[in-house]
């Protein structure tokens, strides 16, 4: 063994190199404040390692990016952990780098002869931020997509080269496959490669100049191994513990949130995302931009940040002036405090914005829904977005809010849970066709309230009169018959929520259907199976998908309200809604979607 090592040493010098590294002299011996270099290298190394493993399963294209990330996150064993480490470490790294920068500036380690290494360090910070920025949109979820879109549009504001650079990064005029392939190549290839080179230069220059500041005379020098290495290891372990805590915190405290990194709903260029925000360490820029009125965004996005960067760059020279060092320290502290204030202001203004909160809630619901669908039925080649686009639970409320909620309500809201400004002029359709809903309709107290006919021209129509006069005077026996009629009529809809009770009450339902046609004589006006009826809507299959689709296509058909139809448009026949959209509204109202 020794002979083999000797042979290898003679040819490579690896042992001597390792010895040189491990036993590097540390002036004044090991110290806690010397852990920064080791910790930063560990943090960057962690990004490299987790990044390469993510790369094994990531597929950059508009139809596979979200899909592959979702697969890693929710299907592959340990995927949540791997992605969580990469995600949260990407959040910590800029913090560590800025703290390191402050340490260097406050400690005066940027002054001659370490100017070049100071600049190399600044370049490293910039490269890390760019890597974070390009990584943010790789999952191709709504949040990353819209936030990056904003960032790229701001890049287009840069004079001369801006628009061309923007276009080269996006890979064309529109966002798509090439945006992902290019962002991925920059994120996983170009930037990490450059970071490695810059890191090597940083380490080389550091070794050339050594630790700055007071090489303490009281303590004897010591080697790196094992005293300093132990301190570094402790700090690295603390970093990993922090990451693990961030990954599992929502489970530990039972707060709403993902295990590991968040993954929103897939990017949809036609669906706005009002909760689009950059990563928190860019929030200060986001808030800063709000301060600049139209036509001046160049100042906020380019000029002032560039001037600030220049001022930091020139710090080693500023330091030579009288009180220059104090100025640098004050400037940097002000900068960090200012950025912190802006970030907090952004958070506060979002916290006070109900629209933003609603957008977040809706985004989380959609994200959860698409994951369920992807898990249940797999993702078609067209991408996960098609799952949501054809999902009644997702589209139903949106279609209802857009097309129905100016008259109807759903549990008193527009279907998406928001209040409606316009007065309610038609029924509340939550639970339409269910026993409860029909019980309300046939209740003399309730039929003329706005939740049923109150807002329509049927308020005092034949049906309302019938309920308020005839039904109100029912004998207990007739009331029992009415109950069975409701059960029978409700069973026509084959509602999923009533499957069990419909089965249980088969006898009563059969009897109810009988009362409907004979003793209570609903068929005097309504058609029902073999009975032809006269003026009122056909009750055959009432509340079923088929019935609802037909009704939505044209409520003024002879089978329904005919000429006495109130204001409800013929959504299908007039081409206001497609057949698929009508079907999704019907399915949603009936509570019929994939679970």
């Amino acid at each position, binding site marked *: 063994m020794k002979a083999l090592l000797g042979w290898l040493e003679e040819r490579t010098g690896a042992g001597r190199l390792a010895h040189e590294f491990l036993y590097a002299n540390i002036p004044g011996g090991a110290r806690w404040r010397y852990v920064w270099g080791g910790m930063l290298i560990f943090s960057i190394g962690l990004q490299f390692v987790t990044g390469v493993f993510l790369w094994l399963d990531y597929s950059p294209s*508009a*139809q596979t990016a979200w899909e592959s990330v979702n697969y890693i996150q929710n299907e592959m064993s340990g995927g949540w952990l791997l992605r969580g480490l990469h995600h949260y470490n990407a959040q910590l790294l800029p913090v560590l780098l800025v703290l390191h920068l402050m340490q260097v500036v406050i400690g005066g380690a940027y002054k001659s002869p370490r100017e070049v290494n100071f600049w190399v360090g600044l370049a490293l910070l910039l490269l890390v931020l760019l890597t974070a920025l390009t990584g943010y949109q790789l999952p191709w979820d709504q949040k990353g997509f*819209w936030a990056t*879109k*904003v960032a790229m*549009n*701001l890049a*287009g*504001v840069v004079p001369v080269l801006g*628009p*061309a650079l923007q*276009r*080269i990064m*996006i*890979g*064309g*005029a*529109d966002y*798509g*496959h*090439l945006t992902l392939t290019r962002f991925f190549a920059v994120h996983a290839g170009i930037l990490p490669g450059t970071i490695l080179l810059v890191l090597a230069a940083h380490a080389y220059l550091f070794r050339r100049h050594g630790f700055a500041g007071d090489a303490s005379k009281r303590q004897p020098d010591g080697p790196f191994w094992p005293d300093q290495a132990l301190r570094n290891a402790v700090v690295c372990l603390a970093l990993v513990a922090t990451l693990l805590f961030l990954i599992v915190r929502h489970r530990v405290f039972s707060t709403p949130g993902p295990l590991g990194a968040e993954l929103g709903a897939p990017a*949809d*260029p*036609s*669906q*706005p*995302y*009002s*909760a*689009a925000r950059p990563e928190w360490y860019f929030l200060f820029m*986001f808030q800063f*931009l*709000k301060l*600049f*009125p*139209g*036509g001046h*965004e160049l100042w*906020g996005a380019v000029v002032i940040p560039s001037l600030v960067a220049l001022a930091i760059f020139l710090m080693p020279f500023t330091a030579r002036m009288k009180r220059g060092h104090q100025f640098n320290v004050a400037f940097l502290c002000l900068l960090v405090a200012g950025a912190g204030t802006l970030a907090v202001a952004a958070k506060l203004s979002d916290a006070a914005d109900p*629209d*933003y909160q609603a*957008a977040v809630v809706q985004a989380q619901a959609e994200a959860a829904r698409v994951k369920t669908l992807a898990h249940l039925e797999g993702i078609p080649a067209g991408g996960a977005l098609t799952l949501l686009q054809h999902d009644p639970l997702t589209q139903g409320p949106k279609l209802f809010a*857009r*097309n129905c909620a*100016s008259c109807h309500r759903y549990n008193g809201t527009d279907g998406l849970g928001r209040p409606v*400004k316009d007065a309610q002029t038609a029924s509340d359709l939550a639970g339409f066709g269910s026993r409860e809903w029909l019980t309300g309709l046939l209740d003399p107290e309730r039929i003329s309230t706005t939740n049923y006919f109150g807002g329509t021209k049927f308020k005092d129509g034949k049906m309302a009169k019938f309920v308020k006069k005839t039904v109100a005077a029912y004998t207990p026996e007739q009331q029992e018959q009415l109950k069975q009629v409701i059960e029978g009529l409700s069973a026509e809809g084959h509602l999923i929520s009533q499957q069990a009770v419909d089965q249980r009450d088969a006898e009563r339902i059969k009897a109810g259907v009988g009362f409907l046609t004979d003793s209570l004589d609903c068929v005097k006006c309504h058609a029902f199976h073999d009975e032809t009826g006269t003026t009122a809507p056909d009750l055959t299959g009432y509340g079923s998908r088929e019935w609802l689709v037909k009704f939505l296509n044209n409520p003024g058909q002879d089978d329904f309200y005919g000429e006495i139809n109130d204001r409800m*448009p013929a959504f299908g026949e*007039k*081409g*206001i*809604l497609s057949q698929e959209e009508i079907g999704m509204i019907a399915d949603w109202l009936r509570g019929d979607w994939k679970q």
Partner: protein
Amino acid sequence: MAMHSERTDTGTDRRGFFKKLLAAALGAIAAAVPLAAGFMVATDPLRRKSAGLAQVKVTTLDALPADGVPRRFPVIAAKTDAWNRFADAPVGAVYLRRTADGKVAALNVVCPHAGCFVDFVPGTGTFLCPCHRSSFAVDGAIADPRSPSPRGLDSLAVDVKEDGSVWVAFENFEAGRPDKVPVA
């Protein structure tokens, strides 16, 4: 002899200089070929035209509120994404509203500041961008002068056909500049 040796020295110097020049030039050419090839592909998007203007049927007249409140509609059109062609993909969205003179006006929902989608706020009757709080009047003009947007919302040409279908000449415009320039 002296002259001869002098000549030789000059010759050596000159030959040496040419050697250095040649080495640099050949090396540069060798390095330039792969770089040029890469540069050509990387900048290909600059030479590619965008989808540009598309006449798209968005909805029908009956779907527009009579009171002139804008309503948002997704724009579904054919779309090419690099090597893929989609017959009907969501390419954007528009706000449509009936105007006082009985016509239909269309606005691209994209905020000209940084590209977010604006929301219509019924309470104030204005459009508000959720990203940097630009606000726009119902006709698209900037409502609050403190808005970061450099111009109002971009209007689009609308064509209402005899059957009541509403067609929009859909296109996107460059964000972040005061003039309305189509994304080409």
